[in-house]
């Protein structure tokens, strides 16, 4: 009851402060009138009565003032007043206020955005049951990751001590033909996966509608069931609940829909929209088939990752002994999250480090900004203390003045963070995993906001807190002649500026190294001519073209149809376009020093005869493929110059041979031609030599059609698709892109990181410059009398300027020295991120340091110049 009353009065006092004041004023007016009346009643004249009453009454304002302090919520009202005062100060010095607001907003925005991205992509747990127990398993050959075979996965299931369950899957293209009007329906290509039925239970997910697969649906004859993704269900089937049990046509066969996954299920990637059971053929179990599965497992309770690694590696040895393949190969067991983010981790770690440095710089800058302002008002502080202001009051006021700036900055910062995260997610190139998870993370926002706000508050409160323990004399002495009391603070300010430089150097060095990498990348020769090429992907249906010969004949008809389009110079087929990732195949190469059955990893592609001409890949020796290199002809291959040079240095590779690995049949291929080396995986990575097969001898179901235009303009897509449909009306195509675009995309993530780094370093540079300017300008105002005396004693203007500038340049030099140590360490850690630049690139380090010192010098020189212009007559008379 009492509590409620108190809350009510406090509320009334705050909410209706004006009303309470008015009440009090009226009450006292009544008091005065009543006193006057009483005096008149005692027999005084009205005038005398009034005078006497006023005399006893004292000051109405003073009473009001004291009563107000007694009233509930007084401290809070006090504070609101201080904050208003702070806002007024802000209006009076907008440059200071804007700098503060910008610092806080940019600091919060940049830090929150990058931290949120890192959290969403790298740290946020996978949306599965006990996600930290999930692992991904690879075959390791020559320290590269290869896909395991089905037999490996089945064998892993026997390691019950370390694995609870092991599952496997492979990607598959599914050609969905809707059951809409005949002839009027576009076939649609779906990204799908063939999965072992236990994958869903291993991950710990279930269908949102219907069910996932039963254990026996991996048996041939029962596998025509499909689980749909939420997005596909909504887009294609109007989210109808009756979809379960319906039949849809995939790749020419009827599949029964058994379930629909929830919208959060994005596995193996967010593009996957359909899952069908994986049927493992008997041949795969004896390890005579290719390795092409992704294997995932759940660790057994109590089992650790190192234990699992050890068990898997010894299993690999046993398997090698059993099947006689993969001798010397091991297995890699990685946590599923690490595996999913392996490729983006170096970039994100770099951005994380960069934005942490930037945040540190912003905090330091804010502290010197607020600190300078607060110490400039020490004299005022001393006077107020001397006049009786209590110390908590003085501190509260110092903080309150910073509040409008910090609050405005924080609000803007949240907006900047939102906007920056959205921009980042949009700007991120395709293929960054889990980018759809990225959103402004609350905890991250709170931390970065808290860090900057606390820094601001601490810096503004510091002089007031200091005043707590010092007396009036020392506080005002600073203004006195020959004072040295400011020295401690001036050193502190210089340390803060030096630290900003120290943090800025690694940022600049990093950005410079990335810029140099980007320049190097533009000079990379991809080995083909990307101009004028249109590409599109498609997959052939084995139902309609069962044999390899049928498929190849179908391909030849497609090529002919597209070639007939006016303006087409040539048409080629390849199963994987350059710059779009590797396709590792181990082969045994017959060269002088080869050990028996030794396997070498090569990058292999299946191509049509006109592929090299279409892509602009030059033939170096021998011949290209022809339509006669078919299943009845001797097996032939074309290799790149790199393989030829490595295996048969100084000799011709034509007529040499290599063979398939044991599980693929050990067939020998003779080399008939040598072509230019091509950047197959990416412009910046080039791990393997290359081998090409004829599409009639090593047939693939998924192909990329490349069309070279006879003119400058690329061939439009419509006629190409129409030509394909004229051969097969149900053929779906996807991923239409120009080759130029593919080249750009392959360096898109590097570009993005480079741009961000340039942005961060530019910001760091500006902040450092502002910091140095502030220190020197402050130093000049502090020492203006000293300079006056020096000039009076004969110092020249340039001597004074140098003296004043030294404060800034010396801090910058000291900071740069420390920063270089940071930078050398950080640059070493960037090994994976640079291209054609040494990990500790001297040019980048020198360029960045010189640029920063140059800026520091200019920032010191400008305010120092004013010191040189000091007129001793004026400064000394101003005493």
């Amino acid at each position: 009851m009492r509590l409620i009353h108190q809350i009510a009065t406090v509320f009334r006092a705050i909410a209706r402060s004006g009303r309470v004041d008015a009440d009090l004023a009226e009450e006292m007016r009544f008091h005065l009138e009543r006193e006057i009346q009483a005096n008149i009643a005692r027999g005084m004249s009205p005038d005398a009565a009034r005078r006497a009453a006023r005399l006893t009454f004292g000051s109405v304002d003073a009473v009001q003032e004291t009563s107000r302090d007694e009233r509930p919520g007084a401290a809070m009202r006090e504070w609101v007043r201080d904050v208003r005062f702070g806002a007024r100060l802000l209006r009076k010095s907008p440059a200071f206020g804007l700098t503060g607001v910008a610092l806080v907003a940019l600091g919060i925005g940049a830090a929150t955005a990058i931290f949120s991205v890192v959290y969403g992509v790298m740290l946020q747990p996978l949306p599965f049951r006990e996600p930290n127990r999930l692992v991904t398993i690879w075959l390791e050959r020559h320290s590269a990751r290869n896909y395991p075979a089905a037999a490996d996965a089945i064998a892993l299931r026997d390691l019950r001590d370390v694995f609870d369950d092991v599952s496997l899957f492979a990607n598959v293209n599914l050609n969905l033909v809707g059951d809409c009007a005949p002839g009027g329906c576009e076939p649609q290509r779906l990204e799908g996966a063939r999965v072992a039925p236990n994958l869903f239970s291993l991950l710990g997910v279930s269908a949102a509608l219907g069910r996932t697969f039963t254990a026996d649906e991996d048996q041939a004859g029962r596998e025509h069931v499909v689980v749909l993704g939420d997005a596909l269900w909504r887009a294609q089937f109007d989210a109808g609940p009756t979809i379960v049990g319906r039949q849809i046509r995939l790749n020419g066969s009827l599949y029964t829909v058994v379930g629909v996954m929830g919208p959060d299920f994005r596995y193996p990637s967010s593009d996957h929209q359909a899952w069908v059971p994986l049927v493992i053929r008997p041949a795969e179990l004896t390890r005579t088939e290719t390795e092409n599965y992704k294997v995932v497992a759940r660790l057994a309770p109590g089992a650790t990752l190192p234990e699992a690694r050890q068990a898997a590696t010894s299993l690999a040895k046993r398997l090698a002994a059993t099947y006689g393949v993969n001798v010397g190969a091991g297995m890699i067991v990685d946590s599923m999250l690490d595996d999913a983010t392996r490729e983006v981790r170096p970039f994100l770690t770099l951005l994380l480090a960069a934005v942490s440095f930037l945040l540190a710089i912003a905090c330091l800058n804010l502290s010197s900004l607020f600190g300078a302002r607060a110490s400039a008002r020490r004299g005022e502080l001393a006077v107020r203390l001397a006049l009786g202001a209590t110390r908590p009051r003085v501190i509260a006021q110092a903080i309150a003045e910073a509040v409008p700036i910090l609050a405005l900055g924080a609000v803007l910062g949240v907006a900047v963070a939102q906007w920056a995260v959205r921009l980042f997610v949009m700007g991120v190139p395709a293929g960054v995993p889990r980018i759809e998870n990225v959103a402004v993370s609350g905890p991250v926002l709170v931390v970065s906001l808290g860090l900057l706000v606390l820094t601001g508050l601490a810096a503004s409160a510091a002089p007031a807190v200091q005043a707590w323990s010092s007396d009036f004399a020392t506080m005002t002495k600073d203004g006195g002649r020959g004072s040295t009391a400011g020295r401690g603070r001036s050193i502190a300010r210089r340390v803060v500026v030096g630290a900003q430089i120290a943090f800025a150097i690694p940022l600049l060095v990093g950005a410079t190294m990335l810029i140099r990498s980007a320049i190097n990348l533009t000079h990379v020769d991809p080995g083909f001519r990307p101009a004028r090429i249109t590409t599109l992907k498609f997959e052939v249906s084995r139902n309609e073209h069962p044999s390899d010969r049928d498929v190849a004949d179908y391909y030849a008809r497609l090529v002919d149809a597209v070639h007939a389009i006016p303006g087409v110079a040539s048409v080629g087929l390849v199963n994987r376009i350059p710059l779009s990732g590797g396709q590792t195949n181990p082969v045994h190469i017959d060269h002088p020093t080869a050990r028996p059955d030794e396997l070498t990893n090569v990058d292999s592609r299946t191509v049509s005869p006109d592929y090299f001409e279409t892509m602009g890949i030059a033939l170096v020796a021998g011949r290209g493929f022809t339509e006669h290199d078919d299943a009845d002809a001797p097996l032939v291959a074309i290799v790149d110059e790199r393989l030829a040079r490595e295996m048969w240095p100084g000799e011709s590779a034509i007529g040499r041979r290599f063979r398939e690995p044991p599980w693929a049949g050990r067939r020998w291929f003779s080399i008939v031609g040598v072509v230019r080396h091509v950047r197959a995986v990416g412009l910046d990575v080039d791990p393997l030599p290359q081998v090409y097969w004829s599409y009639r001898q090593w047939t693939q179901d998924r192909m990329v059609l490349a069309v070279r235009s006879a003119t400058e303009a690329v061939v439009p897509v419509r006629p190409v698709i129409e030509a394909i449909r004229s051969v097969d009306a149900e053929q779906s195509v996807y991923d239409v892109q120009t080759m130029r675009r593919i080249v750009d995309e392959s360096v898109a993530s590097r570009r993005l990181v480079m741009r961000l780094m340039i942005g961060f370093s530019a910001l760091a540079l500006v902040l450092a410059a502002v910091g140095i300017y502030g220190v020197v300008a402050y130093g000049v105002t502090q020492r203006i009398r000293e300079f006056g005396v020096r000039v009076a004693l004969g110092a020249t203007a340039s001597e004074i300027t140098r003296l004043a500038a030294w404060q800034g340049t010396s801090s910058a030099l000291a900071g740069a020295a420390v920063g270089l140590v940071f930078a050398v360490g950080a640059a070493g850690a960037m090994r994976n991120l640079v291209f054609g630049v040494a990990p500790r690139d001297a040019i980048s380090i020198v360029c960045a340091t010189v640029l920063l010192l140059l800026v520091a010098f200019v920032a010191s020189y400008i305010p120092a110049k004013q010191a040189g212009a000091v007129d001793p007559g004026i400064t000394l008379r101003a005493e």
Partner: protein
Amino acid sequence: MTKPTDLVQGTLDLLILRTIATEKLHGWAIAQRIQLLSKDVLQVNQGSLYPALQRLERQGWITADWGVSETSRRARFYRLTSAGRRRLEQERADWERLSAAISLVMRTA
């Protein structure tokens, strides 16, 4: 007129509570009543009366309403709350103990 005796803060609170214990009074009347009852020894300054009233109101011991004064003017009348009544009893007991103790010391020393 004699110089008003400075009132110890706690004492003023007690006097106010006591004065309005029996009937509700406005500020001026409270001051008059204290002066009258103390035979002009205690004069309550407005500068301490109104802050004290605000303080007591905040504590929830007294409460105020606008009413009409004996001179037909709008005035704010204060009265005790039940919490205030308990507080008065306690303060009175404290005071009596204290003054008895002081008198004892003064008499015997």
